Every structure is written in C-alpha cells, then in structure tokens.
C-alpha cells in the first residue's frame, strides 16, 4: 500500500515498464518473424532490454555481462549459424502446423505463471530495493562461496569448445 506522499509509481518502475514492453514486443516479433535474420536482430533487442532491466534493478555486473556475452557473442554465433545453414524464408517454411496449439500452450503457461506470481507476491506489497550492487561484492561472493561451481563452469566451457570444434570441422578426405 502506497503511503501518503509516497509516489505510487516510482521512476524506476516507469523505466522498467518501458524496458519490459520493449523486450516483450521484440520477443513476440522474434517468434513470429518470417525472415530468420530479422528474427536474430529482434533477439538483439530482447536481450539488450533484459540487460537494461538488470541495470534498472541495479545489478550492474550481470547487466554488462548480459550485454557482452549475449548481445556481443551469442547473437553473432546465431548469425553464423543462420548463414551456414541455408534457411528457407516464409511462414510455412518457418512455422509448423501446430501453431494454434503452441499458442494455446503458451497462453496457458503465461496465465498460470502470472496467477502464481500474483498470488505469491501481492502487487502492492513486494518491492525490490534497488541497492546498487558493486562488482567487487559479486566477485567476493563467487570466490568465497562458489569456487567449485566456478571451476566446473570453466571446465564445461573448455569441453564445449573442444566439442564444438570436433563436431563442426570437416574431416580430411570428406568431400
């Protein structure tokens, strides 16, 4: 409940709402686009708006990591994937016959999740305090409590790197 004199909608909420609308709109265009390259560009907008949402939530380090890794690296990978595979363009070629059923499932998931969220956290009560998170604090938490997962992730990345090279290279003599 907003106390008297306290603004009911804070500037951060306005910023977050704009970012969220942008992200959801671009995500909708992403899953309905008929041109695969356009879809990849909508993916950039969606990922950047999620990064902006992290920044509005004052999670600075995660926000910039999102921009660097997703927008900078993963989208480039997707574009390479699209260009190495000759993808047909057009609705029938991109979408399968169960579009309506898929939309039904997605709407059901959305309604279920929204009902759960609003039942667990009433709209006017649960508030995020946007305390600025310093990168040094995140680093201290990683290297004090999560060193083993951190090493496991580095091992996973190495394995993925080797695996991707082995899978995607052409063998000698093959064509």
């Amino acid at each position, binding site marked *: 409940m907003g106390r008297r004199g306290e603004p009911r909608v*804070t500037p*951060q909420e306005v910023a977050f709402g704009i970012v*969220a609308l942008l*992200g*959801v709109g671009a*995500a*909708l265009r*992403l*899953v309905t686009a008929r041109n695969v390259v356009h*879809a*990849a560009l909508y*993916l950039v907008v*969606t990922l950047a708006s*999620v990064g902006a*949402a992290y920044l*509005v*939530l004052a*999670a600075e*380090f*995660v926000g910039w*990591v*999102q921009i660097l*890794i*997703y927008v900078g690296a*993963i989208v480039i*990978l*997707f574009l*390479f*994937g*699209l260009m190495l*595979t000759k993808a047909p363009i057009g609705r029938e070629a*991109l*979408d399968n016959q169960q579009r309506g*059923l*898929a*939309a039904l*499932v*997605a*709407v059901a*998931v*959305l309604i279920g*999740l*929204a009902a759960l969220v609003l039942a667990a*956290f*009433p*709209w*006017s009560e*649960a*508030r*995020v*305090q*946007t305390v600025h*998170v310093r990168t040094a604090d*995140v680093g201290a938490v990683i290297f004090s409590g999560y060193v083993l*997962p951190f090493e496991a*992730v580095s091992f*996973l990345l190495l394995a*993925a790197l080797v695996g991707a090279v082995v*899978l*995607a290279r052409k063998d000698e003599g093959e064509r």
Partner: protein
Amino acid sequence: MIRLPLALLFSAALFSIGVYGVLARRNAVMVLMAIELMLNAVNLNLVAFSQYLADLAGQVFALFVIAVAAAEVGIGLAIVILVYRNRETINVDEVNLLRW
C-alpha cells in the same frame, strides 16, 4: 523501488513467448533462439529475487546460467550445422533419426 511482480511478470511473458517459439518453429536455429528467451526469463527471476532478498547468490547463479547458455549455444549450433551438412535441412520436423 520496483514492485517485484513487475519483474516476475516480464519474466513470465518472456518464458511463455519462448515456449511458443520452441513449439511452433520448424527451423532448428529459431528453436535455439526461443530457448535463449526462456533462459533469459530464468535469469531475470534470479536477479530480481537476488535484489529482493538482498542476497548476491542469485546474481552469481545468473552468471553461471549465462556461461552455461553460451556453451549450450555453441554445441547446439555445431550440431545444427552437422545435421545440415548431412541431411541438407535443419527442419526439426524432418530430422527424426532418434525417433522410435
């Protein structure tokens, strides 16, 4: 201050759009993009709850999820390229090698 349900609803919307994309798309690369949407929805929840509970563990896990997603995209696209090289298509409806 931001209402927590606002962030959670944004995340729920992204997740369900991702579900639609995975179910409705035929192009394997587009399916991978929709999976990225769902992973982003999870990350958004982790960061929002991390700030709500003032516990940095959520953000650390979001970073781990981002790293694992990067590995997943690399391997996934390598498999897609391999399938394209062998079968001349990346239509997931036609790739049924593992179907019983």
